């Protein structure tokens, strides 16, 4: 049996160590060992985006990354968005624009949209749809998800103006 190893990385600003077999997927470490159940398991085949987390400035499907690949990485999950009791602009946007129904895809949606807005702070509707295409929602028809991202983009840009 492959030897277990300790992997250390930063999770939402906090240093964590987790002991894993090399074959363990990041989504399983997050959910089962680190009690971060915000990222969801949807398809587990890198299609749906429900397990999206941010690793070193990249949106990544955590069902298709090994935990051992994350040594020294900076990982952000939905649990890291709220700060001091204040919702992140994206969380507020998804609430205000009703960007969800069942909510299963929402943590992945918000985490992906976060990186999108970092790279492109004022995306057009077309750009939002293109750069959010790795996240599936089976409820909303995406209309309100686009509005939620636009809401956050407006709020973040007026805050920084």
């Amino acid at each position, binding site marked *: 049996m*492959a030897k277990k190893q300790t992997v250390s990385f930063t999770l939402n600003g906090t240093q964590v160590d987790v002991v894993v077999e090399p*074959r363990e997927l990041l989504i399983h470490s997050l959910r089962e060992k680190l009690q971060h159940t915000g990222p969801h398991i949807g398809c587990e085949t890198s299609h749906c985006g429900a397990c999206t987390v941010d690793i070193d400035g990249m*949106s*990544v*499907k955590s069902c*298709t990354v*090994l935990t051992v*690949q994350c040594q020294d990485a900076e990982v952000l999950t939905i649990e890291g968005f709220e700060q001091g009791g204040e919702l992140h602009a994206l969380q507020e946007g998804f609430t205000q624009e009703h960007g969800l129904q069942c909510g299963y895809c929402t943590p992945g949606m918000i985490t992906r949209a976060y990186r999108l807005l970092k790279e492109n702070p004022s995306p057009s509707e077309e750009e939002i749809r293109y*750069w959010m295409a*790795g996240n599936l929602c089976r409820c909303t028809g995406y209309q309100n998800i686009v509005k939620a991202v636009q809401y956050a983009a407006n709020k973040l840009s007026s805050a920084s103006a």
Partner: protein
Amino acid sequence: MIPREFDYHAPQSIPDALGLLAQFGDEAKLLAGGHSLLPMMKLRLAEPGHLIDLGRIRELQGIREDGDTLRIGAMTTENQLIWSQLLQDKCPLLVEGARLISDPQVRYKGTIGGDISHGDPANDHPALMLALGASYVLQSASGERVVSADDFFVGMYDTLLQPDEIMTEIRIPAPAQGTGYCYAKLKRKVGDFATAAAAVTLRMQGETVQEVAIALTNVGACALRAREAEDALRGKTLDDAALAEAARLAMSICDPVEDQRGDVEYKTAMAGEMTRRALSTANSRATH
């Protein structure tokens, strides 16, 4: 959906990675972006005993210009290709192709070298490389060799890359200014492989085709170069009759596998249509 047990190695340099390959031989697999290999391992279609992660080798990443050659590290990601101003200026076909690969999350991880060396006929870079006249640097403990994209693809999941070799770099002769280009890809939805796709580079002299390269994705055991179609176009005007003849000749080399994306006849017809569209768009972008 958990892979079989394996040992994980994360070398920091190419010599270290080559040493591990030499040590573990056929039991080892190289991990690039992991978005083909890890799914195969989760399905137990691949069961390597040792996984050698190339992700920490910095010298395998980056895009630079060396005279008339664009040199791209094999571990450069699709997203890095998309955002490269150098490629946008010198080789926009590669940017257009990368934008059509899978979805944003996959493009943060997926690499050009992984896409090419996997040997999957559904991958997009092989046809792009054929249309661009690219070559690949393959390195082993005994040295390096450079092979042309035209020779590299042998069959389904079968390439010239040997088990003791690592693809380190992709070299692309920068297309001449004014070269028309297009990657026309038909896919059912975001994230799907091509039903059929065509990559074209085109140089025009007035209304006459001076030079053209056409390559097809996912309609054969590997990416196909449509040489008869190219030969038929050189020296001709790109009118409807010439486009139709090029499409017909491209279709004549197709040998797709029937699957949920369509039957053989449909896929072949779509390869013809993608050829026609790619040529038309390339023509509209070329300097005349």
